[in-house]
């Protein structure tokens, strides 16, 4: 009888303490930023050369833009 009572008591204590588990205390920081390769909002124009949603094309477009716009040596080899 005493054994049964002890077992029931143990189960009750376990159930009670189970409710005391740690709750997540994050600040709820936004981590839902839309990737840039998804493109701008509807109605806004994206730079030519890639289609919104195409990650590989976006990356290639940016690489090409950087080389074309910032590297003169690809345009002329005679510069000092």
């Amino acid at each position, binding site marked *: 009888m005493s054994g049964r009572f002890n077992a029931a008591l143990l189960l009750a204590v376990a159930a009670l303490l189970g409710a005391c588990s740690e709750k997540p205390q*994050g*600040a*709820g*920081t*936004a*981590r*839902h*930023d*839309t*990737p*840039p*390769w*998804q*493109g*701008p*909002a509807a109605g*806004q*124009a*994206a*730079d030519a*050369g*890639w289609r919104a949603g195409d990650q590989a094309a*976006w*990356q290639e*477009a*940016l*690489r090409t*833009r*950087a*080389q074309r*716009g*910032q*590297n*003169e*040596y690809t345009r002329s080899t005679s*510069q*000092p």
Partner: protein
Amino acid sequence: MARMKFICDSERCIECNGCVTACKAEHDVPWGVNRRRVVTLNDGVPGEKSISVACMHCSDAPCMAVCPVDCFYRTDEGVVLHDKDVCIGCGYCSYACPFGAPQFPSNGTFGLRGKMDKCTFCAGGPEDNGSAAEFEKYGRNRLAEGKLPACAEMCSTKALIGGDGDVVADIFRTRVINRGKGSEVWGWGTAYGKPVGGTNGGAAPKAGKS
């Protein structure tokens, strides 16, 4: 794709502040806030060098580490951004940042310190790409339009290079090889001195803002 990075070629920077102006105009940056600025080393001394400085989007960003409300996040492209809805404007990030990137607008009667503002690599914030809310808080999202940061694209001498880290490194390497110098102008040796006979023989140059 590698991480997005900036580098400023001090051999080319002419301290025109075009990058500063481009940034302010592109994002409607409020009065008193400079997301980017030009710093001159050895100002007034022949051979002075200037570099354009903003958030460097650190791989292990100290601002991110010290923020008590964890408002920072890093995009897949390696851009360090923050959520102004979470920021409490405490200024810890400002103390932690070695580049002075975090800025705080004084927009109240008593100079109330507002939410932190910094360079976004023209990637906006957590709001929808290109939305009015995003523009109001963080400025224009040029990356989502397939464009590079306005400061780098507007740089007249192409001293400031921005974009995919691999491409940026490639462009800078090409310049250094072609002109036969450059890597020594701004780097480890400039900042900490070159070792002479096993000791640190050189002192860091004096820095002066202009």
